[in-house]
């Protein structure tokens, strides 16, 4: 091998109160998919922003093709062949695909020529896109395609991808990986940031692990166990969630022929769902995103009313009861979207605690808020779930994704639910935090609560579920014991109506 494409040496960047990167050095070879691993807050984002010219390092140098490389702004980085796909998409909803692509280019051609190029490139890489569609109408996966195609049109030599799969369905992840392999075969280097270890083992050739802003390890992810990488990331030994197991009690929640029309455009209608949930058990519900997960969670939480007899809680018909009434009874729900659904971003943690824990924790009396109790409750959640924050007065927005997730899940668990419904409990959460959350869910079941865990992560469901069921086009398969369930059987349960979008078929 000749000189590496990009050499980083001694990069250091400090912000007031925190050193984001400290003496970071590593190389990225040509045609290599290089993983950058680390927990939330390990300094991954600062590092890639440095490479992309959004952040200037305090000390240290970069060399591209052996020549000094210090982009003062993203424009310069792009001109040198560095392209980036952002974690939070840098897209403009009101504009169409072609305009969005043009905004990310230095010398965009006329829009109709560009539209033609977008069609060609997107088809060549198995990411079909219609350049005339308005970006605001696209799905998360399609929006990411816009970003990727925007990068590809500039023929990058280094493509930076910041947590690209966090918003994708499993099928979309496969399509993305095909594209990355194709790029690698063409000699493009890819810097791949993620904390999903299995993905990294699938796609990456090299891995650099960051912790607290420092490089703590380098490895070949194909030959290193996921557990070893996770432990290097966290800097501690990880424990697999465990539970003694298996005693279940009375039926607490009963769904009988639960059907509901789709609550919004592009939603999924629920069709004739039957289910019995017993105290002390964990029911895992899998399925590809958009098959009724959100709708089922809404029907259970009370955000969407159904016919009264379709949902029974301890024999009582509650299909028409609202969210607060259900909370009073002991049926609690933690929705998927942290910001804006589970938590109000600009309110403090104390206020957010009040929002759902008011009825059960006696935080409201005669219409007046009991701030002292609310603050105490928030502090208990923070302490028990190791939420890293200066205190309960901090705005929810200021917490990292993993920490906020620990808070919103913890907030429900601490209310001693009898039935808890959680949707994507560890979505976008790092390994250590995910383990904490799973253990807490299992402990809750151990204490006699019934749990419904809706997740895209099959490994997670197999790890914590007693029984497993799959949602498919709004219908729920009959639950089966999770113990001993093989991957083929799960595939059959998930499968059925889905055509696995063979986007790579024609190329």
């Amino acid at each position, binding site marked *: 091998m000749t000189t590496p494409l990009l050499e980083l040496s001694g990069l250091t960047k400090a912000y007031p109160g925190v050193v984001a990167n400290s003496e970071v050095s590593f190389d990225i070879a040509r045609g290599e998919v290089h993983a950058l691993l680390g927990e939330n807050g390990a300094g991954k984002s600062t590092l890639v922003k440095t490479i992309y010219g959004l952040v200037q390092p305090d000390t240290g140098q970069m060399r591209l093709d052996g020549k000094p490389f210090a982009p003062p702004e993203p424009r310069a980085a792009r001109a040198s062949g560095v392209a980036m796909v952002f974690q939070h998409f*840098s897209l403009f*909803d009101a504009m169409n695909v072609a305009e969005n692509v043009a905004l990310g280019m230095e010398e965009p051609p006329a829009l109709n020529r560009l539209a033609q190029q977008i069609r060609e490139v997107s088809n060549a890489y198995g990411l079909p896109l219609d350049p005339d569609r308005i970006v605001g109408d696209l799905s998360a996966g399609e929006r990411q395609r816009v970003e990727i195609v925007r990068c590809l049109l500039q023929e990058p030599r280094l493509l930076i991808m910041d947590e690209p799969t966090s918003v994708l369905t499993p099928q979309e992840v496969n399509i993305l990986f095909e594209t990355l392999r194709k790029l690698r075969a063409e000699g493009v280097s890819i810097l791949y940031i993620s904390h999903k270890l299995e993905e990294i083992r699938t796609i990456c050739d090299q891995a650099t692990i960051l912790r607290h802003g420092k490089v703590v390890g380098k490895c070949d992810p194909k030959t290193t166990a996921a557990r070893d990488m996770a432990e290097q990331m966290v800097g501690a030994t990880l424990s697999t969630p465990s539970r003694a197991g298996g005693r279940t009690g009375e039926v607490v929640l009963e769904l009988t022929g639960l059907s509901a029309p789709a609550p919004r455009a592009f939603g999924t209608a629920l069709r004739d769902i039957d289910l019995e949930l017993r105290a002390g058990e964990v029911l895992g519900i899998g399925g590809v995103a958009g098959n009724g997960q959100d709708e089922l969670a809404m029907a259970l939480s009370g955000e969407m009313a159904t016919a009264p007899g379709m949902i029974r809680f301890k024999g009582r018909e509650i299909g028409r009861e609202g969210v607060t009434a259900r909370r009073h009874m002991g049926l609690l729900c933690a929705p998927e979207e942290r910001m804006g659904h589970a938590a109000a971003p600009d309110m403090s943690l104390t206020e957010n605690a009040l929002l759902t824990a008011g009825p059960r924790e006696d935080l409201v009396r005669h219409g007046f808020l009991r701030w002292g109790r609310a603050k105490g409750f928030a502090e208990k959640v923070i302490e028990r779930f190791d939420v890293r924050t200066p205190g309960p007065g901090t705005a929810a927005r200021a917490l990292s994704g993993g920490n906020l997730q620990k808070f919103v899940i913890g907030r429900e668990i601490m209310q001693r639910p009898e039935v808890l419904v959680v949707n994507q409990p560890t979505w976008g959460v790092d390994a250590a935090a995910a383990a904490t959350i799973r253990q807490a869910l299992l402990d809750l079941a151990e204490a006699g609560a019934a749990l419904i865990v809706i997740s895209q992560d099959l490994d997670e469901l197999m790890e914590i579920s007693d029984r497993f069921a799959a949602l498919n086009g709004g219908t729920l398969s009959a639950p089966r014991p999770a113990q001993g369930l093989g991957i083929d059987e799960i595939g059959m349960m998930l499968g059925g109506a889905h055509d696995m979008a063979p986007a790579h078929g024609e190329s």
Partner: protein
Amino acid sequence: MSNIDPILLLSAIIIVSTPILLAAIGELVVERAGVLNLGVEGMMITGAVCGFVVATLSGSPWLGFAGAALGGALLSMIFGILTQLFLSNQVATGLALTLFGLGLSALLGQGYIGVKGPAVPDLYLPLLRDIPVLGPILFRHDIIVYLALAIVLGVWIFLNRTRAGRVLRAVGENHDAAHALGYKVVRVRLMAIAFGGACAGLGGAYLSLVRVPQWTEGMTAGAGWIALAIVVFASWRPGRLVLGAWLFGGATALQLALQASGGVQIPIEYLQMAPYLATILVLVILRAGRAPGSLGRPFHASS
């Protein structure tokens, strides 16, 4: 009613709507860049007094218009610096700018009340002006009327056909994304705000130099607020902006003609209300389009 001349009326609509059109097209650009400047009224009246003072002192109405544009732009930079660099609240700062502009203009205009300014000649368009009906309605106006329409056309071309316009829309739509792509959000916005101030200033000067033409305190009488409303009514699109301005101008010209004709036996106050009511009514009936995504949100390049 019978003694209202339709040709004069239509001609008057164009005159009446021009100052609002000027102020509104400026504000449209500002809002498309994601900034809500409620100080249009203050910038207009400052433009009115600056234009009148400069024109009177120099004897040239054109220097007056240039001075008005400069005055409006300078005043808008107070808003720009406060909201873009010091991240002050845009709504509060905009309201303060209006109040400040009204006071400042009264101060600058002392000694000019009742003074007669230089006349603005009509643009002489041979042949066109002699077309029957259309000639008097469309082709016997001063150059600012045509300049206003040219600015609207220019803004449309800028926003929809140029790269710089696309960047401005991008900044207004999602300033975080625009920043991540390396565009200078604050710089783009400051330029848009200055443009908005200059246009509002021109609109104000049109009132004090053509429409009235003299200086009186508070002479904009809410035109700036109507301009703001019309931007929303037009769904932030230049073409519809012209329609909105003509609608308001039409209602105003009609009520003035009705007053003058004396044919209608209702209190004058109702007639004076009519243009505002008509504009609000249309605004409510036509569903407004989608506002720019980052409209009114403060931006700081910290994330």
